[in-house]
């Protein structure tokens, strides 16, 4: 992890940061005074300074900030892949213990199984015992997903034969196919062209609204964050600090294609 820090939102002028305003039962994810340090080779790298963040159930929160400010660390903490050096991470009110498989995590680096075709990769979550699905249903859903991400015709290709953007789409399909209750996304649309990006954004917000998913979405693109999220948390450049948190009052369902042209968008962007 690169050397970085966020400071606590203490004194941040934002609205909506106050987790206390959200009813306790509604809090899906809570990070309280969380820090994370990595020790190695006699040095200690502090990746996160005390961070407080609350995500309500079915809320779409976007984390926006430059590279290397610990956003991925925050997502890893929520997913339970690492534990905080200080502070607590709560999921559904209970402290996170180990890997949390109720979240779907789309990492920056795609983790496709290179020895499986696109279709087989997308079908992996449905093969697992915890949600075993009949083969015919599995095939149908995989086909739906492939259509959704625009990879029709590539079902039998291997990941090594695909471009980076296509691999990202396969990773997306693989996560969305089992509709986890929480989605953690680390710059999922970065490698896509503008048109596909808009399409995927539209599909994402439609799907997450429909399935009532809680989403934590990391991106560089402020415009994307505003178009998609209920709340945007902005981090400043290194040393990262929560600079502002804004509610996005735009009505749901959002039309991401038009969102950029609306008045409120411009105001929020400032």
């Amino acid at each position, binding site marked *: 992890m690169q050397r970085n820090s966020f400071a606590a939102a203490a004194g941040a002028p934002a609205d909506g940061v106050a987790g206390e305003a959200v009813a306790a039962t509604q809090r899906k994810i809570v990070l309280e005074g969380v820090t994370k340090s990595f020790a190695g080779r006699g040095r200690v790298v502090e990746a996160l300074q005390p961070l407080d963040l609350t995500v309500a159930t079915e809320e779409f929160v976007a984390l926006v900030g430059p590279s290397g400010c610990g956003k991925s660390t925050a997502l890893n903490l929520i997913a339970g892949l690492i534990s905080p050096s200080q502070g607590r991470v709560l999921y559904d009110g209970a402290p996170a213990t180990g890997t949390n*498989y109720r979240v779907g995590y789309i990492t920056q680096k795609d*983790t496709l199984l290179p020895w499986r075709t696109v279709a087989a990769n997308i079908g992996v979550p449905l093969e697992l015992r915890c949600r075993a699905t009949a083969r015919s249903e599995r095939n149908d859903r995989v086909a739906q997903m492939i259509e959704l991400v625009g990879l029709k015709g590539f079902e039998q290709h291997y990941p090594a*034969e695909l471009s980076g953007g296509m691999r990202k789409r396969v990773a997306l399909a693989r996560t969305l196919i089992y509709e986890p209750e929480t989605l953690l996304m680390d710059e999922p649309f970065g490698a896509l062209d503008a048109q596909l990006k808009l399409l995927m954004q539209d599909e994402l917000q439609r799907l997450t609204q429909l399935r009532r998913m809680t989403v934590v979405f990391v991106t560089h693109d402020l415009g994307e964050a505003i178009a998609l999220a209920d709340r945007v948390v902005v981090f400043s450049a290194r040393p990262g600090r929560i600079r502002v948190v804004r509610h996005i009052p735009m009505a749901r369902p959002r039309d991401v294609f038009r969102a950029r042209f609306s008045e409120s968008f411009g105001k929020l962007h400032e």
Partner: protein
Amino acid sequence: MPPIDAGRLSGAPALKAFLSTRAGVAVGRAAILIALLGIWELASGTLTSKFWVSSPSAISGMLLKWTNDGSLWVHLRATLSAMMAGYVIGAAGGIVMGLVLGFLPQLQRVLAPYISALYALPKIALAPLFVIVLGIGIESKIALVAITVFFLALYNTLDGVRDVDRDLVRALGLMGATRTEIVRKALIPGTLPWIFTGLRIAVRYALTAAILGELIASNQGIGYLIEFSAGQYNSTGVFAAVSVLVVCSVILTEILRRTEAFTQRWRL
């Protein structure tokens, strides 16, 4: 002077094009073989003594004789069966042990120096030991081959398990895979390329070990043929036996290579 093309060596573009085709490669290889054999045939008797170097014609004559009186098959079968049996035992043992140690790194660390010490023992030292313990029959040859292949398979499998991308394992865990499922769906397929490499390398060493065992103490096998011919100063016999070995090795390696290419299509 025509300008030099920066990207390619100049000269004989037609030849290069021909050599890029499959037919061209086959012809090229055949040409080299014929040239070598031709030089050998011409040199023996004229430049060097036939006694030491023999000649392709004499060697083929010997091979023909062996084929006709059946002794070639007898000896070949003896060597190959020792080699195959030892190979299968060694490979199975090595792969299993490699997987086990790969999944239990603490155990691996404890055992590492002992394994390393055994691996470092030269087979030439072990061969007489096996003969003493297991006799001069096929068992000692099998043991020698097995132990050779075992270490190669073990180390390659171990490297393979370590090489599997940990992010894949984590990703599967996040999807809800159990430990068994992770092993089946990520660790084993991910280790396979390394296992294949180990198996491919082991073929030549297995054959060498089988021959070594026969050279030390045997009354059958290609190694025996080599020893027997050498003992009689029959260089033709030695060359003939060695050429049989070469052909075997090439065929076995090729079989493995094709199997590997088929199952590892995804690697491009």
